[in-house]
């Protein structure tokens, strides 16, 4: 994990794409897009039906290791409004077992403004804690303390050793965009205007998710 001073709070960034806030014992993941595979299958593109299992296995491992008091799903947890119905019963049970012993907060996203009824936990549009404000979609303008998802940032790095495109946290120390956590959640280059325009010029750092750790990469090193 890599630590980051975010609007005065110390948070840790994990290479799986999750945020760990030790002071609050809070674990945050964004954009899981559960059942994206079956959503595509219904349209005729038969993606491997293992994405929800893969995403929840990764989340489960983090919960087991960190034992959070509070787990926050930062929106777009489900790929579409019917995704909850399509979720395999065994996986639904896994999710329930994971969420029951702790404070579970579901932040609403644009893909899942209404969540499946039988899921344990609170529902909210925004969650304020300490000096941070957690919401799904980043708001325009300076937003000190905002933690958001929605944009699925990835960073592309190219140098003499080769090139990599990987999910990344993007921050300038004031606000933070989380990468998508879901197995099938695609990515948007953090060079894209939609992301870079949220930060003052030359102020953003990409915390890139490697295979074993997070690497802090300065803006000047990030390609298109």
């Amino acid at each position, binding site marked *: 994990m890599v630590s980051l001073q975010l609007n005065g709070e110390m948070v840790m960034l994990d290479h799986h794409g999750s945020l760990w806030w030790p002071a609050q014992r809070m674990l945050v993941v964004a954009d899981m897009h559960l059942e994206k595979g079956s959503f595509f299958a219904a349209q005729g593109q038969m993606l491997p039906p293992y994405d929800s299992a*893969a995403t929840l296995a990764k989340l489960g491992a983090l919960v087991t290791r960190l034992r959070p008091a509070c787990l926050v799903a930062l929106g777009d947890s489900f790929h579409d409004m019917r995704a909850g119905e399509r979720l395999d019963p065994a996986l639904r049970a896994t999710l329930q077992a994971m969420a029951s012993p702790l404070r579970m907060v579901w932040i609403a996203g644009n893909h899942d403004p209404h969540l499946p009824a039988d899921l344990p936990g609170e529902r909210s549009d925004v969650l304020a804690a300490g000096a941070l404000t957690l919401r799904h979609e980043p708001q325009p303008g300076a937003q000190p303390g905002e933690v958001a998802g929605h944009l699925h940032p990835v960073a592309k790095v*190219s140098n003499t050793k080769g090139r990599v495109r990987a999910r990344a946290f993007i921050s300038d120390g004031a606000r933070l965009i989380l990468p998508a956590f879901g197995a099938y959640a695609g990515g948007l*280059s953090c*060079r*894209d205007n939609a992301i870079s325009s949220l930060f003052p010029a030359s102020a953003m750092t990409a915390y890139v998710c490697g295979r074993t750790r997070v*690497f802090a990469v300065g803006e000047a090193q990030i390609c298109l």
Partner: protein
Amino acid sequence: MPDELLPPRFAAWFSAQGWQPRTHQTALIDKHQAGRDTLLIAPTGAGKTLAGFLPTLVALADRPKRNDIRPMGIHTLYISPLKALAVDIARNLEKPIKDMALPIRVETRTGDTPASRRDRQRRQPPDILLTTPEQVALMVSSKDAESYFDSLERVIFDELHAVAPSKRGDLLALDFARLRKLSPRLLATGLSATVRDPAELCRWLVPQLPGSQTGADLVLAEKSIAAPPHIRILETGERLPWSGHTARHAADEIYAEIARHKLTLVFVNTRMQAELVFQQLWAVNEGGRRIALHHGSLSVAQRRKVEDAMAEGKLDAVVCTSTLDLGIDWGNVDLVINVGAPKGSSRLLQRIGRANHRLDEPSKALLVPSNRFEVLECRAAVDAAMAGEQDAVITRSGALDVLAQHVLGMACTAPFRADDLYDEVSSAAPYADLDRETFDAVLGFVATGGYALKAYERFAKIRRDTNGYWRAANGRVVQHYRMNVGTIVEASQLKVRFGRPRGQAFVGGRVLGEIEEYFAESMLPGDTFLFSGEILKYEGIHEDSVLVSRAAPKTDPKIPSYAGGKFPLSTHLAARVRTMLSTPASWGSLPAQVSDWLRLQQIKSTLPKAGEFLVETFPRGERHHLIAYPFEGRLAHQTLGMLLTRRMERAGLKPQGFVANDYALSIWGLGDVSARVSRNPRWLDELFAEDMLGDDLEEWLAESQLMKRTFRTCAVIAGLIERNFPGQQKKSRQVTMSTDLVYDVLRAHEPGHILLRAARADAATGLLDIARLGHMLTRIRGHIVHKPLARVSPLAVPLLLEIGREAVHGEAADDILAEAAGAMLAEASV
């Protein structure tokens, strides 16, 4: 005299043109009348196309007039890999038909043909339809395919040598099998340039069924009519570069050749090379020659403009890529220049054939090697071309992703039984060895994805009814299939557009063309690059566009990571280069700069004798280098480098990176390889042992970007991912499905899945060239010659110069990121 095969009307027409019918032209009429499938092999300019159509023209000349109430169907289907070629042929056919007043209607159908005209062609089929493989797939999968083709007598495959050894050829072979079923009388004619083994193409043309004709009859055009080409290698007056691919040193000499000729085609291997050479020629264009640029990334309109100007004689030279390799005569080309190495003798012959499309005059060609190794390769290519030698067409097993696409298409035209379709498919030559189990797996994939976890039954695209017939589940499946036909998968493209980002919006301007996303990914803000003959500065990215501005004049453009020739050195030329190295007596034909270099290598190190495989090791700076010279092409070398690096890591030699070109590869690291070999003389044999293609390969495939690119192509062709869907709007790239993610999940959960099998088969011959690597490892077993040196050898210099210029392929994601993180890592990490 075979001329009696020619009806008087035709004989008279030939004399009126001042032509003698050629033996191979009348032979095709004879073969057709005898009911034989036929392959015609003829060089460019031998009247191949006319020969192909003569049997049809003769057969239809005396056919009773068309009955307008029930029009007759298509008699002859002509299929060309290039739509421009189909259009050009239609023009050429007009003349004999008009001159002889033949009652024959010819039409074309390509991707550009408007729907209204396709409808009319369906209601009133022409006698001859000229089309492309993708259109054939659409026609045989349509609802009325059966009635549309029931009177089809002939099918002509043009440029068969270029189409057959590809996925496009696989699809065409499957559609051909269906055409034979729809019209059992069907006779096939293949037209091909000279190939190494015609028997392969002869088999392709006939059904692979027990007891049937084993191959089409072969007709060869008379050899003597083609004058041998004049091919020279540029003996530069400048110093020959050790490495690099731009041939900058020869710009003046190339320009002088252009000035001496009417129209010169300057062929290069990649788009970036085209941009660079174009720029260099304009920099020395003091005579104001009209020099244009033509490559696949430029907008279609711009390419048409160049082609038209060429045909009208308004140009002096065109710098082009393989976009002009095949097909049409673009005016009076009197010189072909090939910059860089030709990579294969067949490609060289094809390009040379672009000059002087007349048989009585020799084609003129000039090869311009851009570095010393390329001199050897050019020499080998010229020797092979003069000997008329061709590269082998690789006999291939039909691709499974293509089969999946075809199976869906067949369900769209009419219900089928699995047994029947299996028999039909395995009658197509590429699929002759397809086993039933694999076929069923493909069928399962088409229906529901074919996963062990049965989650998608209710979404099935094709379903089997109680009588055992498979059919498309609904109209939407058919619509989606029709929008995604074809096997040509473009790399993800970004538009290049003038503009600047401004807040969340951007101010956008004209689109210049498209670049591959992976090329864009190597650029940093403020970088400049060459595109469309201009120097552009990268300003930002917005949705699917790279925003650029014109760079300040005289800016030196960054040369993007250049991957050598797009095509790897052919096996055949590689063998010739190895022979040349081991035969000092042959060096007389090389420029002095190059033969001196080889002699120096003999003194300082050694040159491998026939059958030997040279490995050099030496220290340089803080590092130890290992250099191997397989001459097996860049792709195989990259794979080899990746695998050797893993092994050396395990052996504790701390490798740090490697670089590969078409001829050799170098791995460097902190461990002393020379010392290791002196302790254990067998160590190099172990390092290069064939078992690296086992577990080491499997582990690496999990991460390999090349493997992911291969998988993406298979996923798109097989229909797992759709390129196009109805009502598609401009999407931000965020929502397009990433096949890399699908690959990771599938590989973790179902490594034996049919689509992964398809991708592995592709990797073997494609981007990873594992098959070639395997042959090499077998060849060198017990023949490794190790030369420990105190310092770099002359032969190794070109490769070492590429370090830093070429991306070093480590592909270990964390190493790349660690380097980028640099100093920041120390303070941020806990």
